[in-house]
């Protein structure tokens, strides 16, 4: 005879609810960005902001978009942004001395580019709709990016 699962009526329940939220922020304090040589990152300027173009093509690792034409950055320069890509912009307040970036190497000889070395403030994201995939809460001025080739 086939047995069916039935409810056990009359029982009362005590629930223990555990929720773990996992946030995958690829841009954070002490996070590193990988640049693919030999080109430099794309900086986009307007009157108030400089923008660093970030690609949003991977969930756990972002790659900086770049172009050799827009480096070194200079005030007033405006580089075009291909809106058909998934790139997003990270805005850099003008007071950040990003135009004099620090370069160095880590222990393995990989080149580093310091995004900014000044006060400990948060880098806000801009208003471009494509920026929403990056959570600004985890951006600080002390982030570093790896650079794997000469500018």
């Amino acid at each position: 005879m086939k047995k069916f699962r039935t409810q056990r009526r009359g029982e009362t329940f005590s629930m223990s609810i555990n929720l773990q939220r996992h946030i995958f922020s690829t841009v954070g304090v002490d996070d590193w960005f990988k640049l693919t040589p030999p080109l430099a990152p794309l900086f986009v300027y307007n009157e108030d902001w400089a923008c660093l173009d970030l690609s949003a093509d991977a969930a756990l690792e972002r790659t900086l978009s770049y172009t050799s034409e827009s480096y070194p950055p200079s005030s007033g320069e405006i580089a075009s942004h291909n809106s058909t890509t998934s790139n997003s912009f990270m805005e850099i307040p003008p007071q950040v001395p990003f135009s004099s970036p620090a370069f160095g190497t880590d222990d393995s000889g990989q080149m580093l580019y310091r995004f900014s070395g000044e006060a400990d403030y948060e880098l806000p994201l801009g208003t471009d709709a494509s920026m929403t995939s990056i959570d600004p809460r985890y951006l600080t001025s002390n982030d570093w990016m790896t650079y794997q080739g000469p500018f």
Partner: protein
Amino acid sequence: MHNQLREKSPSGSILSLDTQDMESDTWDVVVLTSTNRKINISFENKGAFATWNAALKASVDEQIARGFSADLKGEDGDRQLLITHAALAGGYGHCLFSTKEASEQFLNFVNGESVYSGHTEYNLGANFRCFLFSRFGELVEEVLIAARLRNTVGMSPNYYSNAYAAAVILHHEVDYFQRSLRNGHLRSLVSECNLSQQALLTFLGLNFVSCKHLDVAHMYWT
């Protein structure tokens, strides 16, 4: 239920259970029964914590069916799923109406590291019960609507028999909870808990009447 959600979140920053891009929630609900059985409900949520999130609904449905529902299936034919859904409604009701307390814990991880979320209220228990209640209501409505369409032209006899069988199962489930909450095993929860159980009882009463008025259900039942 919505009142309960409001009442339980008086001030401070309340955690939204809808996840954004690059966020994922892992729920682990451990249900300990008064007979010392342990039933686990575990699921991941990406997106809205609501019944219109199809992936979430499918995952919770499967686990509620496994842990709380009678194992009833319709025979092949039109709308056989109705019978499964009527039994599933009973499972949701079982989980919802028989719960007397819920504890909660929230942990926030950023890139694998535990980070304080900044929220002061989580309200996990109320939100989870709200989800159960919403899904219970959906399933009840689905079965009742199917049973009410008995005079629709072009429907097969199979459709009617499955729809009516589902209505009878649902009636049986709803009747049990209503009786049990009023003067049965679950009676203590009505006074112990709060107004939500009273509100659920009212909801059950409405659906009991609705179900009872179905000709076939009535025929089977009386």
